[in-house]
């Protein structure tokens, strides 16, 4: 079966001491896979995810989405399917609900509609009360913002999530619900998959179907 994502010989633009942080790196991601990336800080795990999301230019190599190479004008559509969530969540001015609604105005999302049922369902699943919808997004705590940024991504129905230490600032009592929510999300449709960066061994065991460990150099 064609993998959802395939990366061949990828080298990153970002270098350390003149050598690309990610060098000639290849891997593929199958449907239903939950790939966990581990390794010390600064080895390029985030850079890898950012490069896959086309936030960073490729120095060398190719990225295939369902076996197809992408052209520049397909990038927004690709990103609406393969969504990278940064370690530091970033919501814009306005209420949480404003944040949820405004992303539906993007051209690549024009076929989707804001669905409050879906939003309420996710809030419940992640143990957040409905009242969050009317809160000013800029005033949320780091952990709350992190969860709401995830919900904002989920309501756009992507097929792959690229999560960069998503539980780093989340309270421990919410982590279980968070992890379960994401695993359930992967299971709830055939064409979904996940890449997750973590520093926690236990989380790696709980979540992964496969692990890629980064040492000082590439795995």
């Amino acid at each position, binding site marked *: 079966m064609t993998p959802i994502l395939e990366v061949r010989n990828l080298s990153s633009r970002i270098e350390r001491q003149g050598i690309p942080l990610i060098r000639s790196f290849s891997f593929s991601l199958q449907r239903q896979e939950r790939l966990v990336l581990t390794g010390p800080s600064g080895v390029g795990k985030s850079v890898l995810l950012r490069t896959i999301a086309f936030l960073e230019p490729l120095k060398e190599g190719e990225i295939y989405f369902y076996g197809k190479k992408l052209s520049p004008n397909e990038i927004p559509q690709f990103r609406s399917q393969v969504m990278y969530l940064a370690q530091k969540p*970033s919501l814009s001015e306005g209420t949480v609900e404003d944040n949820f609604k405004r992303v539906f105005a993007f051209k690549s999302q024009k076929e989707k509609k804001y669905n409050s049922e879906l939003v309420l369902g996710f809030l419940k699943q992640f143990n957040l009360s409905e009242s969050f919808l009317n809160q000013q997004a800029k005033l949320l705590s780091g952990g709350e913002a992190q969860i709401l940024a995830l919900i904002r991504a989920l309501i756009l129905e992507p097929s792959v999530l690229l999560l960069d230490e998503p539980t780093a600032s989340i309270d421990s009592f919410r982590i279980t619900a968070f992890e379960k929510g994401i695993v359930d999300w992967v299971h709830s449709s055939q064409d979904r998959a996940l890449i997750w960066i973590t520093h926690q061994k236990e989380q790696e065991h709980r979540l992964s179907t496969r692990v890629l460990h980064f040492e000082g150099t590439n795995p």
Partner: protein
Amino acid sequence: MSYVHRVSPTWYKKPMIPNYISLSFGQVASAGSLIFLSGLLGLYLRLKITKSIYIAGLRTAFQLFGMGFLLQWIFKTQSLVLVLAMMVAMTGVAAWTSTERSARPFPGIFFNSVLGIGLSSWVLLTFASTLIFRISTWSDPQYVIPLLGMILGNSLNGISLAVERFTEELFSKRDQVEADLCLGATSWEAARPSFITAIRTGTLPIINSMTVAGVVSLPGMMTGQLLAGVNPLEAVKYQIVIMFLIATSTLLGTLIVALLGYRKLFNSWHQFEYWKVGQKS
């Protein structure tokens, strides 16, 4: 109105307007005593500004006299080449001034601002000289040089505010810009909030000036015309025209520089090239 007759050098042409008090060089020098006293005050209070005050004062006098001689020469010769050279030089200096102190430069910022400031002010100048003032020769220096100077000098401010704000917004809100990109926004959709903020920031000063014109402030050009003995209603008409020219040129210029900045900082892969911000050419 008394007019003190003095023996003037041949290059000095006396003004022709009847109600006009011509200043002698001595009278200008007596205003210079104010600067001299300001410097002394600074010295006495140990403000460490005396040197700057004197240098700035000397610069004002030399630069403006320089400009005066130059303009007199250009007005007299009416040479097309000279007028054009003067206008190009003014535009170049304006563009350079608008970007030299930018806290967040990026490659090509100077070129962008030449294009933004140059295009917007020259378009408005052409409009003004052909359709409003309807001067017979478009290059008549008595009109085009002061008009260009006023449009440049005033729109320059707004344009440099806009460039600065645009890169600053994008750079400081990079998280948000990238978050939007990641949610499927095109580069334009992701840059638009910063773009709008930049345009609003750049046009705010002129919108404020227009709002208080005649109520709080008597704008400089109008004041000059009143002092020169022009009928107030005539002076007001000129002032209105000038403000409209400046406002339009500012909006046009900010749009151009922000659009060019956008094209420079985003590529066809809908990537924000944040690493370019802070680099000089």
